[in-house]
């Protein structure tokens, strides 16, 4: 028997495409319609908010020629591109290419930071060699989750900060704590403009003078704290419980690395927006700053819980 062609959206399933489109256009109709209608009018006209001739302000937008693949995202893009002058900014209110968790712990000699190298476009594993751990100052590493382009901008800010410091040549170098304070201000300032940088940042390093290790994290709205171990995103839920049990500030390098690899493995098993390609960065007083070449971890997918994920989970299907 020939399989019949599906009458519904091939990816979203029966009725979902149409429903999603209708819901979106209904909920967005008030602002969205007015914007799209007025966008073609003279921008100087005083009647900017009046609907175009014949169109009722609350009518649903006419169906488009092509069924939208992701109606929500398209409506969102349209709201940005058709916004009238003076409307609130909508750019960077929605991350596009994102990185997932960054994990970091203190150990005997300094700090160790780990992340995978994926830049995910939604759920698509789009860019697989993105460096999300970068040197920010002579003994400071910054790692980032969240929007990659925003992180590239932050990296640029940090490069300029460090260049200016080098040029000054006064024998005073930026300490990790200072880089952290700077980033806190940048993140909080941008959220106050309602234009946040969509990142969770981890700052780690060693004070060259005292040898003291520093580890801190800052969220996209400027919430920040320092601790002996930090993690962003999923890592907060998956890795930090492990860190709480096992991390000590006097760990050896081998122990610290083993713990980070364990945490990376746990994150990789459970976070679908991650790949098995990681880098580990270290900062120590003795040997300075290093970011490793990318490597992958051995994995074992034969566990019963992986093979039968719903077996012991009551209520799932």
């Amino acid at each position, binding site marked *: 028997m020939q399989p019949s062609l599906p009458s519904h959206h091939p990816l979203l399933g029966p009725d979902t495409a149409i429903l999603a489109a209708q819901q979106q256009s209904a909920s967005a109709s008030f602002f969205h319609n007015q914007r799209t209608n007025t966008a073609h009018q003279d921008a100087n006209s005083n009647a900017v908010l009046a609907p175009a001739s014949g169109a009722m302000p609350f009518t649903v937008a006419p169906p488009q020629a092509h069924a939208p693949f992701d109606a929500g995202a398209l409506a969102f893009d349209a709201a940005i591109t058709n916004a009238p002058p003076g409307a609130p900014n909508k750019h960077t209110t929605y991350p596009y290419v994102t990185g997932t968790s960054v994990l970091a712990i203190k150990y005997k000699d300094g700090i160790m930071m780990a992340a995978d190298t994926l830049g995910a476009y939604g759920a698509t594993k789009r860019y697989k060699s993105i460096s999300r751990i970068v040197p920010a100052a002579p003994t400071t590493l910054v790692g980032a989750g969240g929007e990659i382009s925003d992180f590239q901008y932050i990296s*640029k800010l940090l490069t*300029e900060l460090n*260049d*200016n410091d*080098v*040029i000054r*040549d006064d024998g005073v170098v930026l300490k990790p704590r200072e880089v952290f304070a700077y980033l806190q201000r940048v993140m909080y300032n941008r959220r106050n403009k309602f234009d946040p940088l969509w990142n969770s940042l981890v700052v780690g390093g060693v004070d060259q003078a005292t040898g003291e290790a520093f580890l801190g994290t800052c969220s996209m709205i400027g919430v920040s704290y320092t601790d002996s171990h930090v993690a962003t995103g999923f890592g907060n839920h998956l890795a930090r419980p492990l860190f709480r049990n096992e991390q000590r500030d006097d760990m050896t390098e081998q122990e610290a690395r083993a713990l980070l690899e364990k945490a990376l493995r746990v994150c990789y098993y459970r976070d679908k927006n991650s790949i098995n390609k990681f880098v580990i960065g270290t900062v120590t007083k003795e040997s300075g700053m290093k970011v490793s070449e990318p490597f992958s971890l051995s994995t074992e997918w034969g566990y019963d819980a992986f093979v039968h994920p719903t077996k012991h989970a009551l209520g799932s299907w």
Partner: protein
Amino acid sequence: MSSVGAGYDLSSTTFSPDGRVFQVEYAQKAVDNSGTVLGLRVRDGVVLAIEKPVISKLAVPGANRRILSADRSVGMAGAGLAADCRMVVNRARGECQNYKHFYGSAMPTEVLAERIASYVHLFTLYWSVRPCGASTLVAGCDQSGGERTPQLYLVEPNGVVQRFYGTALGKARQSAKSEIEKLDLSSMSAKEAVKAAAKIIYQVHDESKDKQFELEMTWIAPETDYEHRRVPADMLAEAEAEAKAAIEAMDE
């Protein structure tokens, strides 16, 4: 009115009848009275050196620097009014940062030198400002592919920019220049140039006028990864010792 030009030297916006702008020439005089400044462009780098008179015995050694960085690999040595030098360097820093921010790569030295020249030139065009009393040597190292090209430019108060293998400014510029002419710059390494520069500075120093001076020296070299850095203290001390020894040998 004793001469043709008399009365035409108060404004930088008025030519004298024989076609000169005296205020700009006076600015050049301020530069010519400065401590000697030296720039050598050699095979694999650039060396900048300054004879800096000690203004007070209470001054902190090494303070009040006259050679500053405009970018990681751009050094600027100023002759003339220190404050004017600083103003020019600050402008150059802004230009470099802006260029890097916009184009994503370091500013070519030639572009920088021309921008500085345009900036300095502006001060010769308006009655409301006085010309810049500083000449700057701009040392850089351009990278294209794997190739590094050392560069040395001179920007003068009148807005002229020139490219050099080696040049000197300030009090003893004439004798310093004739010493530089004796060097084989195109085959010399930056390391050798450091010693040569120290020797020239000590040689042209006029003992009768300024008793004490400090030798300030920076370089761009393979040893600094082609970034603009101060010559390390031990290397500077060695170069100074050799320079002094050479002078003494010559006197005998």
